[in-house]
């Protein structure tokens, strides 16, 4: 009798495990057949931000966090899949910032997601709209003015508006002196990598958020790589000019007195010499250049952005 009682739990557990396994197998079959349903994940059931706000019953902040997380997931998954349809990005950001108008990170990163030409929605107009909304809701926050100026300057090449916005940003409480310098520089000159470096340096220095700082540090590293490769390519071109052919390796450049030694990337890995006579990152280097669609890779000016 005792043995029979002891067996019952084990039998139950075994039956439960078997049934759960069967349920999992069934779920796999359902998933395989439900590609249409899965495709519907990229839809907003409610697209009216004010309706969502009302339905949140006072939990707008939490809902905004959830929508922001969904925005990040949406952007990330599309980036990885090299998808070009970012149509849902604006509605998601619209809902997020309506639910929580103080969510600065959504304006700042949202503007990047929207404005990126290859790795984003390529909708600088919406990025400008988003950041302007952020400034209206957070008039004391100079970071947003700085971001808006960046959009005018870097994406739209609208230097007068960029300079004016940098000036406005520099007048806000806590704004670093660099913004005034930016206003002056943008007023005086056209677009350059140097300016982008200044902006990312400012973001790196001013942000307390480690994720934002990491992103800025990564961008700065990429800019440094871009600088180095341009400089080294110029040296290779000079070699070609002198000797009528591209150098086969760095040694030939050294022998010609054009290079003292092979410089290293920001992570300390020496640049390597390609068969096309151009320098590139060491494959072992942890620096990752964003993978872009073929059409974007054809445009060297936007290779690192």
């Amino acid at each position, binding site marked *: 009798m005792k043995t029979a009682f002891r067996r019952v739990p084990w039998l139950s557990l075994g039956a439960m495990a078997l049934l759960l396994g069967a349920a999992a197998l069934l779920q796999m079959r359902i998933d395989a057949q439900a590609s249409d349903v899965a495709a519907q994940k990229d839809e907003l059931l409610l697209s009216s931000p004010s309706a969502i706000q*009302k339905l949140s*019953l*006072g*939990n*707008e*902040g*939490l809902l*905004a*966090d959830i929508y*922001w*997380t969904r925005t*990040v*997931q949406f952007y990330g998954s599309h980036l990885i899949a090299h998808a070009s349809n970012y149509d849902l990005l604006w509605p998601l950001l619209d809902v997020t910032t309506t639910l*929580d108008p*103080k*969510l600065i*990170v959504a304006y700042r*990163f949202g503007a990047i997601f929207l404005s990126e030409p290859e790795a984003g929605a390529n909708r600088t107009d919406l990025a400008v709209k988003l950041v302007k909304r952020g400034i209206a809701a957070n008039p004391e926050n100079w970071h947003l003015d700085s971001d808006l100026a960046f959009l005018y300057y870097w994406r739209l090449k609208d230097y007068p508006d960029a300079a004016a916005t940098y000036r406005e940003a520099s007048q806000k409480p806590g704004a670093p002196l660099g913004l005034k310098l930016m206003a002056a520089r943008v007023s005086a000159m056209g677009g350059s990598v140097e300016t982008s470096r200044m902006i990312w340096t400012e973001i790196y220095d001013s942000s307390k*958020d480690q*994720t*934002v700082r990491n992103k800025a540090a990564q961008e700065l590293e990429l800019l440094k790589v871009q600088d180095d490769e341009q400089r080294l390519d110029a040296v290779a071109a000079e070699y070609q000019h002198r000797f009528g052919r591209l150098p086969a390796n760095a040694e030939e450049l050294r022998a010609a007195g054009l290079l003292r030694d092979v410089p290293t990337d920001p992570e300390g890995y020496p640049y390597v010499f390609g068969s096309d006579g151009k320098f590139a990152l060491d494959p072992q280097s942890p620096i990752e250049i964003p993978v872009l669609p073929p059409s974007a890779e054809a445009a060297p000016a936007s290779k690192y952005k």
Partner: protein
Amino acid sequence: MSAMPGVVAVNTFREAVRDRVLYNLVLFALMMIGAAILVGQISLGIERLVIINLGLSAISIFGLVMAVFIGVGLVYKEIEKRTLYTLLAKPIRRSEFLVGKYGGLLLTLLVNTSFMTLGVGVALYYVGRPFVRADAWILVAVYFILLELALVTALALFFSCFSSPMLSALFTLGIYVTGIFASDIRGFGEFTNNEALKTATTVLYYLVPNFHNFNVISAVAHGEAVPVALIWQNTLYAVVYAGVVLIAASAVFSRRNLK
């Protein structure tokens, strides 16, 4: 007033503990741990915000569920189990019994909310963020949630004096939702040209408890200060409104035929 309400309150609290009501804290703890670990992996730059928003929203929602579903059974259960007759045979007024029941549930909610607040603090510490002065406003948000729950509990108790638990829960939740939308309802009235409708929505606005007053979660999550005037005004509003509801509950319960 005698010491009887206190005795009833302590026993109501003990009963709630015996009923394992505080087990919801385990769920809350798991939720906070999950959020603290997960959010950093799946989102961007909102670890601190999520802990505060999720923590305070959970305190509010868990508290609301407890206030409504325990509150609506406070009187009904005593009548159903016939324990009320034994109690009322003792030197205790019906109004004292109600106040005691109300105090007991408030005590339960206070203990529950305190532990949850502690959980939010631990989760904030876990996400590696040093505490700053502005975090004190989180405690004000928790205090406002408690005021809100005090109002909800009073409403649930009021309905439980003359209605079944199911209907009482529906009435209480209905008033809660109406209270959240109170300013919108008044806004709709102002859009119309109908003076009668405008007056009706304005009267409704002042009649239902305006629960939106107590919501400062988003503001404190961003480290914004809560005006001191709002703290005492909300306190007074909750005391006055809960007082009115308890007097009404007492009036109804005193006249109720328990035979």
